[in-house]
């Protein structure tokens, strides 16, 4: 039998022109909304990196360069019923899905109280540091939603690096067998810290892996918001229709560092980077909108100023959140804590003078 890996999906070219014969997958209003989210992602990243340098923000992994991938995928979801299971580099996806940016920001600023947790009713799981561990969990979530007859789709994120973990395989295989309503969205940003895509796998395309689990895989230009959105919409549609999982490989580039402790100049390939800089996902949309006359310098400046003001507002609000309560670290470990843990909490309270 012949299994075809779809050729990489692309609609909007780096120069902002539509590919010959291609149709945009978003209407203009929706695209402007997408642009707004992408700008929020970028401006937020830039701002908090600054904060981190001042010691006011935790270790942070920016989405720089991956905005089309992050925003385009999440816009295919309905926050009311669908779920997001993130890795960690999809900040605006979970914000768009309902997790307030203030709360996330407060968390990064060290305020880990219950007030900053994912609010009830927001269908997002915690970000995952243990790479790929989120995938079997996402499959279980989708499975359970299906068993309960809920009309929900789960979108689970993974990186090119995380895809080498055994959990990736176990999760996709189980998802195929149980035909659960899930979309595996891989951001192949060419790097896992310093490890390049070429050392991560010899496969010509990660999307080929889907055939080994009995469902479709598709590779998209991850810097093209139309292509990302189109692939995601189609995968969500399949999942919702009961046709099972899809693996989307979104080919993009990590334009920033791995995280705020990293220095890519030790390992980055200048040419590759330059190539992707020319393919910047935001520039592409801006050029397109300009070519349609839907954006001019003035409107763009206004939009940026607006978004930037929102970022400032968010950070201020987060900074004003109450700080941690020391014995709060004992909360939410167990619902029915062992006596020994309760005793330790008493001991801690005694010596720290806070109850």
């Amino acid at each position, binding site marked *: 039998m012949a299994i075809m890996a779809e050729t990489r999906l692309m609609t909007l070219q780096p120069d902002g022109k539509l590919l010959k014969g291609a149709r945009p997958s978003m209407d203009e209003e929706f695209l402007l909304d997408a642009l707004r989210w992408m700008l929020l992602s970028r401006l937020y990243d830039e701002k908090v990196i600054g904060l981190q340098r001042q010691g006011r923000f935790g270790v942070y992994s920016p989405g720089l360069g991956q905005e089309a991938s992050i925003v385009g995928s999440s816009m295919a979801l309905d926050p009311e019923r669908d779920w997001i299971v993130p890795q960690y580099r999809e900040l605006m996806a979970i914000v768009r899905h309902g997790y307030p940016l203030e709360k996330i920001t407060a968390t990064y600023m060290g305020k880990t109280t219950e007030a900053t947790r994912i609010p009830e009713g927001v269908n997002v799981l915690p970000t995952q540091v243990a790479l790929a561990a989120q995938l079997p969990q996402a*499959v279980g979530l989708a*499975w359970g939603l299906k068993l309960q007859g809920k009309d929900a789709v789960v979108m689970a994120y993974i990186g090119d690096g995380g895809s080498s973990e055994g959990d990736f395989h176990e999760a996709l295989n189980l998802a195929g067998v149980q035909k659960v309503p899930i979309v595996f969205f891989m951001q192949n940003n060419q790097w896992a810290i310093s490890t390049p895509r070429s050392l991560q796998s010899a496969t010509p395309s990660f999307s080929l892996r889907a055939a080994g689990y009995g469902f479709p895989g598709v590779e998209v230009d991850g810097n093209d918001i139309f292509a990302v959105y189109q692939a995601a919409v189609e995968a969500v549609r399949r999942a919702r229709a009961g046709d099972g999982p899809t693996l989307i490989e979104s080919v993009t580039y990590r334009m920033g560092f791995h995280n705020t402790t990293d220095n890519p100049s030790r390992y980055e390939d200048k040419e590759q980077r330059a190539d992707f800089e020319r393919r910047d996902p935001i520039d592409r949309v801006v050029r397109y909108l300009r070519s349609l006359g839907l954006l001019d310098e003035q409107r763009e400046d206004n939009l940026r100023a607006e978004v930037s003001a929102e970022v400032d507002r968010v950070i201020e609000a987060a900074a004003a959140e109450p700080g941690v309560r020391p014995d709060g670290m004992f*909360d939410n470990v167990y619902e029915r804590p062992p006596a020994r843990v309760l005793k330790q909490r008493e001991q801690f309270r005694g010596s720290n003078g806070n109850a």
Partner: protein
Amino acid sequence: MAMPERNVVEAINNALTEEMERDPRVMLLGLDVGRLGGVFRTTSGLIEKYGASRVVDTPLAEASIIGASLGLAVSGMVPVAEIQFLGFTAQAFHQIGPQLGKYRHRSRGRYHAQVTIRAPFGGGIRSPEFHSDAVEAQFVQSPGIKVVMPSNPYDAKGMLLEAIRDPDPVLFCEPDRLYRLYRMEVPDGDYTVPFGKAVVAREGKDVTLVAWSAAVELCQRAAAKLAEEDIEASIVDLRTLVPLDVETLVNAVAATGRCVIVHEAPLSAGFGAEVAATLAEEAFYDLDAPIARVASWDIPFPPASMEHWYLPSVDRVVEAAKRTAAA
């Protein structure tokens, strides 16, 4: 009417049946739990009763069994996952302690992980490599997971029901050597055995044996032999390692001033160490003799033909108890 008698397999099967009947959210998943009814038949008959969507033969991949169970729990199901043998929790290790055990904490209370992991373990039935490994202590180092070790059919049912209903994740270790060793009265219908309550399984004034799971049965035999030599051993069955019932433990040891801890895991860093350490701090002034531990040796579980030399034996327990009683 006489109360029904059940062995451990039957008690577990009965608990699962009743709980699946009572709570439609409960589902089983694992290797061969469906059509086969489990390699030890603990889940026998359940797929016929509740169907293949509630009793699921999964692909052969332990990490995904646990990871998926966590996701199922988040979705609102109540999964009871089986790991075919406790030794193969190693394949799922990163999904147990770091994920299942920490999920409530990681989500700051938004999500909980009401998952029960059932796993047979222990030597004495001539299993192949890895199948007998007693690795329970490794999970005690993973805060968030409760570690439950029933030693008899009655507790097996009551503690399994408690485990399934506990909103916290539970590792429920089944002593496979005891699966069909004997029957005892195990009532039909609902009852639970609470966690964190050790029990004095035998009274005795001369020395206190501390054990859990199949080692309790071993201690019973050792105590009978000791009694022939006029040494009366009390036996503490810890029942759960997390939560640990320090009070019962300390009182029972203080009563004799002498303690022998018995377990199937290798000596070093086995849970016996935690028991001894707890006593060395909290029962120090009541101790009249060094705390002895009788455990497997600090070597890999040997081939079946040698396991009786490896595991703690009645003779070794008796010898340690006599030495401790005389010290």
